[in-house]
């Protein structure tokens, strides 16, 4: 079976550039992997890898070890699992295990010390392709070398894979997690490799190990000899940093280069870390999700350096306490190795799936880089760059913020390995410059995209507005023709239609941003309804004004005050627009009649009472009492008007004539001023109606029922924005709003009214 096992390739390609930093591995690789006492608290960032997930748990809920805390469906999604049993103490933003330490949403798991686990189902029979992938995915396995890329995606490539490379290189100084794992769990790793082989069906499999880990290589060789892996070999490569980088390792083993911007799968190669192989084996055969990993805790600030099994989510503070961290002023906590690791500003952050090392160096051990000097263009950085960049050119451009030029020098191909900074005689933090430059380039690119997007949206909107304007004009013309033909008709609709036409005309002329576009066939009736809708709305809000509770007064007063202040500061530019919340319905006859009556009344009232109503409304008082008094005055007036107009309700012809000639006979103009005044009048009248029906202190159901229907129709008429959201057919939606909401609505309406009125007055003055 193992005919070709442990055949070693002898052909190796040299790594471009690279350095030989002091290895410092003996500090931590002499002792077996140990366990630490469990922590009391675990921090589980949501989600760690891949976005778009929803929480599956609530605060205060008890969870078991291995229970997934999130659900998600996107391809990149990986579940977060509880590392032990306990209760979710909090779900809140906490500092992240990231160089920026920016807060991310984190589940805080309070351990109950029982470590109760959900039952893990071991695989009983041979699993299918899909089953294996599903298990890997459910286990939340991400690349454990540091990049944390979801493994189930990498193991399900679109193209044919010729070569599988298992990365046990671990080229960074200090880190020995993979070294110890290979020494102690060689056969488990090979089981994981076997699973990967089953998934990928590669022609050859290579396990690459650096020659500074002879014990690990020996252990793997022995395990390989005992296994039945086909076409698998151990390849010992020379120690040189950064041989362990995915692209660099491919170059060393195959002589091929991964094209810029592509992934190794393009070359038919997949690279997986040994730690990932181990985790896959656990997930598939035992059903255990990725709950813990080996982490190297090392550096001379640590009393007990070594490798430890640590649950994902364990606070780093806990690990440091357990391993005897001797904190000194200005000590560094580095996550990862000395070449690519990042410093933490706080240790209250969790261990992530990709955290392979905690480095706690003493100040003299890894001395801080001295002050940056001028670049002398010595070119040492170019000599050691593993991707053959010209770091000093990049540096000039990055420093001068000439990011486009930096891009021409292939800044995006920089792997941030740190070789250039390592050799720089002027102690220039080159990698830092590149990171800043990369971030800036990414930002610029996103801004550009954003601008393009905005432009598209703007153009689409302009187009739509233009179309709506044309439609509106067409409607108005159509309405005018219909009116002519309907003049002979003797139906009540005619009144409404006439009013609607006036309204439509006014809207077309006066509206700045209003966009009415009637869409129903029965446009006459709906327009009429719309007219009354505005009134009804005012009426309703006025009604609720009366029903206000004590505690809302302050809010209203504040809102009014704000509105006033705003008035003074700014000039009103928008016409009053009120839309309805109820769904569009076919306006029934009754509603139409009601609407028509209302509008007719409004006309009259306005003609008679405009000055008075204005007087009443122009004093939006802060106190409820005053408002009520004012309302009462208006009511009285309106009632009088209503009585006077009783005949108008029946005398259709007269109203029709009057309405159709409204622009000239009634108000002498079709300006906004007239419209505003009418609306104000309608409000007053509506109040009066309410008072007369003795429902002043209650929500006026009957009137609002009619008005909401009307308003709904109006919404239809107005042709709302595409984003408009309709609620379901509750006609009392606006009535049943919470009191709080009402108060705000009242305040807003008051403000809006005042705005409108002032403008009306201005125009009158003009």
């Amino acid at each position, binding site marked *: 079976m193992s005919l070709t096992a442990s055949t070693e390739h002898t052909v190796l390609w040299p790594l471009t550039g690279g350095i030989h930093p002091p290895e410092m591995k003996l500090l931590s690789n002499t002792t077996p992997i140990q366990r630490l006492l469990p922590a009391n608290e675990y921090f589980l960032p949501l989600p760690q890898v891949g976005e778009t997930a929803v929480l599956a748990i609530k605060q205060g809920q008890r969870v078991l070890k291995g229970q997934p805390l999130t659900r998600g469906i996107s391809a990149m999604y990986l579940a977060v699992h509880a590392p032990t049993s306990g209760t979710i103490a909090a779900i809140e933003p906490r500092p992240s295990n990231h160089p920026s330490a920016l807060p991310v949403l984190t589940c805080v798991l309070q351990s109950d010390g029982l470590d109760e686990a959900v039952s893990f189902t071991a695989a009983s029979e041979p699993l299918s392709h899909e089953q294996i992938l599903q298990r890997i995915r459910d286990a939340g396995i991400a690349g454990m070398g540091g990049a944390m890329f979801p493994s189930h995606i990498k193991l399900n490539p679109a193209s044919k894979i010729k070569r599988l490379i298992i990365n046990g290189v671990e080229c960074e100084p200090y880190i020995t997690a993979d070294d110890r794992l290979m020494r102690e769990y060689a056969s488990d790793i090979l089981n994981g490799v076997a699973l990967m082989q089953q998934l990928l069906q590669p022609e050859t499999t290579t396990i690459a190990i650096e020659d500074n880990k002879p014990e690990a290589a020996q252990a793997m060789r022995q395990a390989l000899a005992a296994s039945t892996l086909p076409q698998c070999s151990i390849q010992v490569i020379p120690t040189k940093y950064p041989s362990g980088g995915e692209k660099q390792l491919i170059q060393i083993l195959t002589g091929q280069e991964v094209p810029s911007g592509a992934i190794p799968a393009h070359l038919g190669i997949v690279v997986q870390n040994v730690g990932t192989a181990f985790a896959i084996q656990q997930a598939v055969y035992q059903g255990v999700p990725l709950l813990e990993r080996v982490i190297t805790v090392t550096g001379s600030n640590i009393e007990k350096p070594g490798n430890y099994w640590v649950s994902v989510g364990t606070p780093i503070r806990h690990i440091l306490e357990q391993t005897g961290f001797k904190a000194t002023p200005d000590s560094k906590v580095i996550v990862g190795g000395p070449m690519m690791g990042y410093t933490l500003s706080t240790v209250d952050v969790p261990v992530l799936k990709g955290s392979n090392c905690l480095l706690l160096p003493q100040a003299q051990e890894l001395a801080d880089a001295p002050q940056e000097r001028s670049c002398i263009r010595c070119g040492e950085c170019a000599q050691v760059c593993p991707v053959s960049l010209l770091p000093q050119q990049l540096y000039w451009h990055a420093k001068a913020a000439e990011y486009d030029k930096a891009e021409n020098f292939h800044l995006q191909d920089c792997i941030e390995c740190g070789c250039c900074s390592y050799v720089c005689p002027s102690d220039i933090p080159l990698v830092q410059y590149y990171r800043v430059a990369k971030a800036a380039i990414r930002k610029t690119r996103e801004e550009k995209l954003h601008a393009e997007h905005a432009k598209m949206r703007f153009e689409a909107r302009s187009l739509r507005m233009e179309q709506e304007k044309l439609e509106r004009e067409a409607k108005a013309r159509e309405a005018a023709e219909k009116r002519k033909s309907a003049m002979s008709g003797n139906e009540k609709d005619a009144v409404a239609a006439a009013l609607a036409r006036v309204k439509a005309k006014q809207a077309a002329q006066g509206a700045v941003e209003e966009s009415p576009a009637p869409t129903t066939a029965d446009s006459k009736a709906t327009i009429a309804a719309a007219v009354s809708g505005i009134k009804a709305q005012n009426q309703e809000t006025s009604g609720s004004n009366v029903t206000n509770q004590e505690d809302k007064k302050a809010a209203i007063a504040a809102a009014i005050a704000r509105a006033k202040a705003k008035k003074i500061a700014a000039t009103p530019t928008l016409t009053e627009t009120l839309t309805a*919340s109820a769904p569009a319905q076919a306006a029934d006859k009754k509603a139409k009649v009601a609407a028509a009556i209302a509008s007719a009344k409004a006309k009259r009232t306005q003609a008679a009472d405009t000055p008075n109503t204005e007087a009443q409304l122009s004093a939006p008082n802060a106190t409820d009492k005053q408002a009520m008094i004012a309302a009462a005055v208006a009511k009285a007036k309106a009632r009088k008007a209503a009585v006077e107009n009783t005949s108008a309700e029946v005398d259709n012809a007269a109203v029709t004539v009057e309405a159709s000639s409204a622009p000239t006979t009634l108000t002498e103009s079709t300006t906004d001023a007239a419209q505003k005044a009418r609306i104000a009048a309608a409000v007053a009248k509506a109040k009066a109606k309410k008072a007369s029906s003795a429902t002043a202190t209650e929500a006026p159901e009957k009137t609002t029922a009619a008005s909401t229907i009307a308003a709904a129709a109006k919404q239809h008429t107005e042709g709302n924005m595409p984003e408009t959201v309709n609620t379901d057919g509750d006609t009392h939606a606006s009535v049943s709003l919470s009191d709080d909401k009402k108060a705000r609505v009242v305040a*807003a309406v008051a403000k809006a009214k005042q705005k409108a009125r002032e403008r009306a007055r201005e125009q009158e003055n003009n």
Partner: protein
Amino acid sequence: MLIAVVLLTLLALVFGVVLGFAAEKFKVEGNPIVDQIEALLPQTQCGQCGYPGCRPYAEAIANGEKINRCPPGGSATMEKLADLMGVEPEPLTATAETQVRKVAFIREEECIGCTKCIQACPVDAIVGAGKLMHTVLASACTGCDLCVEPCPVDCIEMLPVKQDLRTWDWQLNAIPVKTL
């Protein structure tokens, strides 16, 4: 004398034909400089320059309008425009305070659903219906400010876009160091 006249006439004829041909053959559609200018503008469509949108301002610049009228673009855009137009950079008309990208935010409990902001938004980045709460699509918002003024209840504010792990700009010095 005659020869000279004939020669000059011939020359004029020949060059006239060449010029006419060139004008037809290498005809420039539109005004390419306007496109170039527009590409530099931030496309917020905010109108702070006094023109209704970025394209009109680009056209105005091509016709000699000042290049310092675009606050959202900041001095970076102004410098690029100066470079393109071959004019001296000038200080921005507005203060450079608007350098940080901001997006509008509607305090939803205060929103009365008047739709005025929806109508004001040049890029349709606000959704909502009448009397229902509105909200801003932060990803589409250009931070142009135009929705703030129309709001009758002043419930819209411009919030600076927060950095997250993905958009972090590696300013290590900006990390607050906690003393424990």
